[in-house]
């Protein structure tokens, strides 16, 4: 699915067009269009209620759009699939509130995320092979949790949980990573490290980062999409976007 299949509508990795969804009459997303190219990292900003999280819910199959097209890899219609199928296609998600498995060790958290067959029988008779163990060790090293591998994930600090969750995303080895506020609740030092980590990941994955922290986005140095009231308000480099009159009005505030 890396190369667009012959029948592909687009060469984009992710293609949203005219997507709308409403909850009890409230239009959370209205006519949203967005494309992510293979290997691209994109930051998405927007005030509260702009539809950032709802957009992620639509891409990952948690919410079905009322109308519009959501295509992955040019030919897969994501609106027809459920969460597990979409995850197995290669879309990983990190939640705003770090969600790790508190009663598993850090190593087991990574093991559960590690790319593998997810069937009942395969997991029942699972044996971790050497290469897989090596990959787990590697990831634990990248997210700097190798010395804590035997500890329960529930005992980690907030920032460490964020990192563990990023590690779980890496273990999934998705084609596209959706990262919701990775720097929330982090110290400046941790934020800077997280930016480095994400840039490292973006070398061989496509990444969408939703973030509020402008400093963090500046550090990432990538194309920015501004959402407002469920559709795209502006798109471009951060400097250009933050000079935009409308953006300043709705988001950067006055």
């Amino acid at each position, binding site marked *: 699915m890396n190369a667009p299949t012959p029948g592909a509508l687009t060469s984009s990795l992710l293609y949203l067009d005219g997507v709308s969804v409403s909850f009890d009459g409230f239009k959370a997303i209205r006519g949203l269009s967005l494309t992510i190219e293979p290997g691209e990292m994109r930051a998405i900003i927007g005030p509260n209620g702009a539809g950032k999280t709802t957009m992620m819910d639509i891409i990952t199959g948690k919410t079905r759009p009322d109308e519009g097209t959501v295509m992955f890899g040019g030919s897969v219609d994501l609106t027809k699939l459920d969460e597990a199928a979409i*995850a*197995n296609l290669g879309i990983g998600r990190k939640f705003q509130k770090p*969600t790790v498995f*508190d*009663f598993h060790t850090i190593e087991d958290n990574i093991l*559960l995320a590690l790319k593998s067959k*997810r069937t009942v029988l395969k997991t*029942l008779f699972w044996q971790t092979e050497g290469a897989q163990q090596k990959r787990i060790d590697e990831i634990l090293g990248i997210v700097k949790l190798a010395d804590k591998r035997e500890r329960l994930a529930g005992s980690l600090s907030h920032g460490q949980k964020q990192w563990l969750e990023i590690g779980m995303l890496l273990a999934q080895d998705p084609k596209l990573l959706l990262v919701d506020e990775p720097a929330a609740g982090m110290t400046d030092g941790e934020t800077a490290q997280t930016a480095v980590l994400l840039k490292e990941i973006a070398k061989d994955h496509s990444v969408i980062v939703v973030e509020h922290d402008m400093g963090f986005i500046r550090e990432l140095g990538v194309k920015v999409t501004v959402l407002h009231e469920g559709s795209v308000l502006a798109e471009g480099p951060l400097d250009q976007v933050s000079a935009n009159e409308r953006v300043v009005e709705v988001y950067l505030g006055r």
Partner: protein
Amino acid sequence: MITRFLLSNMDRRGLVFLALIAAIGLLVPLANLLMPAGSPLHVSTATMSLWGKYLCYALLAISLDLVWGYCGILSLGHGAFFALGGYAMGMYLMRQIGSRGVYGNPVLPDFMVFLNWQELPWYWYGFSSFPFAMLMVLLVPGLLAFVFGWFAFRSRVTGVYLSIITQALTYALLLAFFRNDMGFGGNNGLTDFKDLLGFNVQAQGTRAALFAMTCVMLISGFLIARGIVSSKLGKVVIAIRDAESRTRFLGYRVDRFKLFVFTVSACMAGVAGALYVPQVGIINPSEFAPANSIETVIWVAVGGRGSLVGAALGAVVVNWAKTMFTSGFMAPYWLFALGALFVFVTLFMPKGILGTAQGWWESRKRPAPVPAAEPAPAE
């Protein structure tokens, strides 16, 4: 592969449990059969059957702990699977009576003669064969659990709603089995058993063999449940318990994993019921009573939810207490005692007997629990 699945990472607590049950399964029948009645080492047949009943409950508790303690599915209808296994065994035992019934009909059980039925209903066919009946002991509860779980888990019914549906399931079966025209003996159920595999079910030797068999099945059930919870599937199942939607976003089909453990658990409960029936000598619809299923939940909570040994321990302890309570002047107060026990455990021992004992033991071993030297997370 199977041996590795069953025995890998066996912890000390599991080994102690296995050794204990194996010893009981060997020594109690011997003490019953070989020791003279006056000897202090003699175990009476009544006592042995009573403890056989407790061990059946222990197997039921393990099966419930598998779905509740590990997968977070609070089934308030596990008694239904237990009773269905029991009925399958009861039907076999009824067919073994042959023409020795009160009415002397060679084919029809007494209650059918009494109802003026002319021939055996189709769903009684085959139950004269022991292997077929044993297959049904697994298949009937398993199939019901599979179909029920298929619909419930696919539509993502969880939490208290699922508990209520399981409760309704067992209540519906209770009402159905009460009806005479269902063909399961109505409110009297199935009783007056004579033979099991050609041996008199009342005979001391048969009782001893049944007790030993119960221990064998308890050990097998424990090994299977432990194999499941210590595999990667067990980790997935715990992940589902703690963060269901997160597990789904990792690409696991949560409904299938739930369906698997729920079905395995129902089969295990069915086996427990099948061993229970010949030891108590009767199966009737009251086994489907919702209160029975709720009591099972209490055993697991008391022993220690999320620990297989704890669940088995809880079943034995609570039922032993129940026997003590209900056979003396305290009899009218048993339900109060049970309720008080549940409240006490919930408030003061949230990890159950075993979890509390373990915590106490660990704090003794390391007298001064120094918090792990951890750079304070700067936030």
